[in-house]
């Protein structure tokens, strides 16, 4: 009886925690880490942020569907709506890294980090993006030692996402 009760309690706790956390985990994340994705950030700030986040999400969908020009436009429009939305800059960093515009990727990543930091959002749930993207930038610049170290850290946070050393648009979505 006791193991059954324990199982039931565990199940209930899991469900309760899952509900409290809001959005379900995106594919590729270890259950230990609940990353802050564009979708899960919806509803945390104000209407302008949500409008901006929805454009980022649309942009990530465009990116995922191999329409990079439209994706870029959506990210830029997201910034028009809310210039302090870190996800718009994070998406741009990812976009430019994929396009091998390493300097631009670095600049947008700096901007995203500054905004996350200013909004008190820095932590593992956001670091998981920053570490991996920074590692990707270092890899593209030929700084392999630093890239390896950062990818290791990113993989510790989410082995599924950073196993291939690339961030897919749907993962940030």
């Amino acid at each position, binding site marked *: 009886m006791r193991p059954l009760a324990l199982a039931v309690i565990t199940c209930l706790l899991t469900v309760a925690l899952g509900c409290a956390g809001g959005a379900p985990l995106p594919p590729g994340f270890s259950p230990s880490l609940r990353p802050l994705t564009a979708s899960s950030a919806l509803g945390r700030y104000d209407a302008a942020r949500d*409008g901006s986040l929805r454009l980022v999400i649309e942009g990530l969908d465009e990116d995922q569907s191999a329409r990079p020009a439209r994706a870029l436009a959506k990210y830029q429009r997201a*910034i028009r709506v809310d*210039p302090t939305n870190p996800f718009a800059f994070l998406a741009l960093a990812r976009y430019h890294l994929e396009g091998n515009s390493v300097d*631009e990727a670095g600049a947008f990543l700096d*901007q995203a980090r500054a905004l996350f930091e*200013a909004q008190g959002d820095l932590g593992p749930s956001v670091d998981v993006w920053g570490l991996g993207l920074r590692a990707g930038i270092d890899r593209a610049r030929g700084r392999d030692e630093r890239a390896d170290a950062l990818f290791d850290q990113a993989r510790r946070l989410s082995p599924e996402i950073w196993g291939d050393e690339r961030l897919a648009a749907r993962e940030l979505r």
Partner: protein
Amino acid sequence: MPRGSKEKPSRKRAAKAKAAKRPAKRQGAKAKAPGAKKRPASVAARRAGLVVIALAFAGGLWTSHALLELDRIVVERFEGRRFSVPSRVYAAPIVIYPGADWQRLDLRGWLTRMGYREQSEAGPLGVGHYRWLPGRLRVHLRAFEHPQLPEPNRKVELRLEKGRVREMRDDRGRPVDVVSLEPEPISSFYGEGREQRDLVELANVPTHLTAAITAVEDRRFEEHHGIDPVRIAGAMLANLRAGGIRQGGSTLTQQLVKNFFLTPERTLTRKVKEALMALMVEARYGKDQILEAYLNEIYMGRRGSTSIHGVGEAARFFFGKRVADLEIDESAVLAAVIQSPNALSPHRHPERAKERRDLVLSLMEGQGRITAKQAKRARNRPISTAAIALESGQDRYFLDALAKQLPEVYDAPLLAVEGLRIYSTLDPTTQRAAVRALTEGLEGLEKRLGQKTNAAGEPQALQGCLLAMRPQTGEILALVGGRDYSRSQFNRCTMAHRQAGSAFKPIVYAAALSPGSGPLVTLASRIEDEPIAVETPDGLWEPRNYDDAFRGPVGVREALERSLNVPAARLGQLLGIGNVVQMAERLGVSSKLPDVPSLALGTAEVSPLELAVVYSTFANNGLRPTPRSFIGLLDDRGVGQEQWPLAGARRVLDPGTAYLTTSLLEGVVDRGTGAGIRARGLRGPIAGKTGTTDDEFDLWFVGFTPELVAVVWVGYDEPRAIGVPSSRGALPIWADFLTEVSGARVRGVFARPGGVERIEIDPETGARALAGCRLRKTEYFLEGTVPEETCPRGGSPGGGGFFRRLFGG
């Protein structure tokens, strides 16, 4: 030189020689007359024949040459660039979303300016129409082109509640997250004629429009070969009956030829040329090509100082829609207007326009181009036009600034003819607020201070500029470079270099606070406000404060909040002016800065744009954006030609120092020379600095929120004292502007980045405040710069350690 022109003189010489010989022969002929009775007649006849042949030959040559020349003109124009289309500049699209403040976004104004029309009658909404319902707005948005993100036609219903968009749904009732509205045209790069046109392709022109035009202007267009003898005869008869010129006999081709190639004078030569060229055009080109050219060329009226040409632009101007979306009655109006665009303008003379429209509809019906039912329905519709959206002259300053940022290949002559569609970063709501705040602010100031005159007794206008920039992206959201573009095109936001005065001081403080200088000071430091003398090549420099008083040691905050000169000068000396110059350049100043001690007080001349970048860097956590005013352009067929994607801002200052500087500038607004901002009711995160130069020649206010940086400069073009400090000159304009853009409550926060500690200190000594310290205030420090001294003196900083231990920090 062409061959033909070389031959001409030789022919002339030959003719002259012939003419010189002729009299002698004739005299000789007369002398021989008795012995040759029959010969003279036959010789004369032969000669006359030869002359006729020669004349005919010369005439033929001349005519051929003239015809070839006309043909060359026709071909050149038809096969080269047919139309000069000024390049048009568009604002950034407005984006609406659930929760958006639709009144601040000026949705109602947007509908009017974009030519959307209210549809009161029931039934499906036409493209470009909207309908207000209780708490709801239904709108059928037009498709629009864009270099990055074109949008299709779509119907949206917005539920509105308490000034906000509550939710949005499409025509199937599905929720819509975000809607981008068609960008507003701002203005165009006109050529000399200030002609505006929107080129159309015949395939996109509704058949009822071409039917309406041909019905009234040239019913036998499909049958004739350029000129229509039947129509000419009919016109002559009508004019004879009327006793004057009442009706023209020109075909569409002739009208096109007249507008395309000839001057409007009424001479026989011009008429002959017109007829010949019309025949040539018809011989060379198909009816469709001719009709398309006509539809794009025809004059359709005026909007302010620009003339409207072609049905594309006219459809926008009169009905606020694309030509493809015209209804039959609207097509008939366009056809009606052609005869006399100003006298029959549906904007100014709707009755006359309706009368002529009904005539067009009757002709269309009579000629079988529309059914009787269609004609009746069209006749029953009132003349309903879109509002005339006049271009604001003040937006021209932005256009000039944009033209300078475009790649060099897009020079002024090309912009005037190429028909490019340039998509800019301008935010129409912010720009309107900037125009209003600056214009009204300067008018108010001038009224208060009285208009000044120069030495010659001519009135001098008080000038100003307002520039707003997005700190994260460098996008210019608003730019008004002067008071009245029609009087002065000098752009004071980008071209004027004026002394920055105290608006420069934050650069000095940023340098002193940054780890690169030691840091030289922290926010708890005190600086001596005592007389200082610096040796310079021009003698001793002894800066003084605005009130000529010296206060002894003052806190860093107080020094900047009260804009004291002596502490800033002292910091400049301690830093070394070279380091101040370096910091200014890193932050975004590109003007040459003099290596003089007074630089620390802002004696260098900089542009408002440069200061906007400097303050953007503070607002953006030390990341410096690149100013940008356009995002891309399309050619006249809507094909993408250039894109200028957003560039990432560059780290030029550590986030901690940027934050400390921002915090100082917040203090200026909360307690210092910028307190007028708060007095005007603005709340939330605002930082800024006043700047008043010696003798009050230049007044500045540069301020920012987490999402917007704005610079206001006020002064005379020929520098002279204004008579008020910046807190009463530039600051009120800035505050009015921000209130209109953000509302009284500004969004966001200036958040403290990692690496900055928040500590309580004794404000009198700058020492760390422990339990038992009488006075205390919160202050911010870069990690590792927290004061070691404590209050009470000698106490151990155990409290901090205790808390650190407690929370495991």
